[in-house]
């Protein structure tokens, strides 16, 4: 199999049943596999809540390692609406030109450095530094801060064995606490200070709420962005004509971003907690149980997408759900899309070829399914133009 191929393990279950079940720390999850069912479920916040015990809507559940509610992610409308509106303008800053110019410098510098090396391990040497340095822009903190975040490794909640790791999570929480203390003592123009000064309906955000936004920002945009970058590098290594096409036809860059994100689905799924017993796709769903919205499966739903298992860079109609759907669509999507846009512009400008030497796949276990979501290691050579 090609290294950049990402098989769809859900196809048979999606066609035959529409729902699949997996256990997760004795709090089972019914996975919603079809796009139409997923959209209905995601939209119905009144019965499929995000405002459960903090960490419970995440799969694997984080209830044992986290008490802080992620905001606005773990709220339902109408409360969610106010919090989302309060933070949204900050997370739209990646649309501003100075932000994009700084982001381009970060990616350009890293690519130049990679070209100068014989071999590069993409996950740790390229995607992780890129994600971390780009995050300094989103938080509006000094560039050097990224060095510490890079030292934490690819996942802020997981150690090498991929299991949830409370001690590792505490490193992040303690760090955010210290940064909030700094911002209280010396307010600046960073995200911590901006949130501490923010009012919603005449009430200032509490310290715990500020922490909740920051935990979301750090955790939500880490392995997702790293997967999107690394998987894209693998794809263009094996499809050099597609990489060249990005330069010849720059108008396909925007659809190409959406298509790569659809195909890779960097986050497999996200949960909700059921309030009252109901049915999805003729399957009984119990009150206080969990369902998950399986973005990765819905993105391959052949009743919506033609040739769903192929990457069609200029796909015209692409209603994918990799950034979620409805009220909780990804807050960091603007930032992520700008990273991808600049990367896709620079790759063919800077590189003649990418050669893969070794790849170690990152395979998730989801009950009966095994899903390739990215790579633990991807060793390549980047060859620049002469």
């Amino acid at each position, binding site marked *: 199999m090609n290294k950049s191929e990402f098989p769809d393990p859900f196809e048979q279950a999606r066609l035959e049943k529409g729902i699949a079940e997996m256990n997760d720390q004795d709090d089972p999850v019914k996975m919603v596999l079809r796009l139409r069912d997923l959209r209905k479920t995601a939209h119905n916040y009144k019965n499929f809540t995000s405002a459960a015990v903090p960490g419970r809507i995440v799969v694997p559940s984080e209830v044992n390692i986290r008490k802080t509610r992620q905001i606005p992610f773990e709220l339902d409308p109408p409360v969610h609406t106010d919090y989302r509106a309060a933070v949204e303008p900050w997370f739209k800053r990646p649309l501003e030109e100075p932000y994009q110019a700084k982001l381009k410098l970060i990616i350009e510098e890293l690519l130049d450095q990679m070209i100068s090396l014989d071999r590069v391990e993409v996950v740790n040497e390229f995607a992780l530094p890129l994600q971390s340095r780009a995050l300094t822009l989103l938080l509006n903190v000094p560039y050097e801060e990224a060095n510490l975040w890079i030292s934490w490794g690819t996942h802020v909640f997981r150690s090498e064995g991929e299991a949830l790791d409370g001690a590792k999570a505490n490193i992040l929480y303690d760090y955010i606490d210290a940064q909030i203390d700094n911002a209280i003592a010396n307010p600046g123009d960073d995200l911590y200070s901006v949130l501490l000064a923010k009012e919603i309906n005449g009430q200032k955000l509490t310290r715990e709420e500020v922490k909740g936004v920051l935990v979301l920002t750090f955790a939500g945009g880490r392995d997702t962005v790293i997967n999107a970058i690394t998987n894209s590098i693998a794809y263009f290594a094996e499809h050099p004509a597609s990489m060249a096409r990005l330069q010849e036809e720059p108008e396909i860059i*925007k*659809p190409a971003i959406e298509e790569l994100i659809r195909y890779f689905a960097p986050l497999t799924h996200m949960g909700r907690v059921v309030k009252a017993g109901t049915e999805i796709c003729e399957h009984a769903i119990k009150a206080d149980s969990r369902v998950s919205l399986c973005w990765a499966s819905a993105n391959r739903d052949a009743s919506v997408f033609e040739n769903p298992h192929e990457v069609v860079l200029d796909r015209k*109609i692409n*209603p994918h*759900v990799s950034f979620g*759907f*409805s009220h909780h669509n990804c807050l960091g999507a603007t930032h992520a899309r700008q990273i991808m846009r600049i990367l896709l512009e620079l790759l063919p400008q800077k590189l003649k070829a990418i050669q893969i030497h070794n790849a170690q796949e990152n395979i998730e276990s989801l009950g009966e399914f095994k899903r390739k979501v990215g790579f633990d290691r991807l060793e390549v050579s980047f060859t620049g133009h002469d």
Partner: protein
Amino acid sequence: MAKITFITTENERITLESTSGSVMQLAVDNDVKGIDGNCGGVCSCATCHVHVAEDFMPKVGPAGEIEMDMLEFEDGFDDFSRLCCQIEISEELDGLVLKVAQ
């Protein structure tokens, strides 16, 4: 050349001219408030929801099936709703008036 008028939720009227491309791109290029076009025009984000003036509906046409699947979950969805990334500019649309949904 088609003149297209956007009416924002704050009742600001913005009239723009173009010959080709999508209505969403025209709006985004001219900073029409409420038209974000986050996904670049592939019908995945629904941040370009507009209501088409009734008399123009026959020329603009109804939403396609996939577009309709997106629209039905949008606030303010009605018989005149379209995602304007799916409306191609042509001479025929000269005089089109669109109300921005959000």
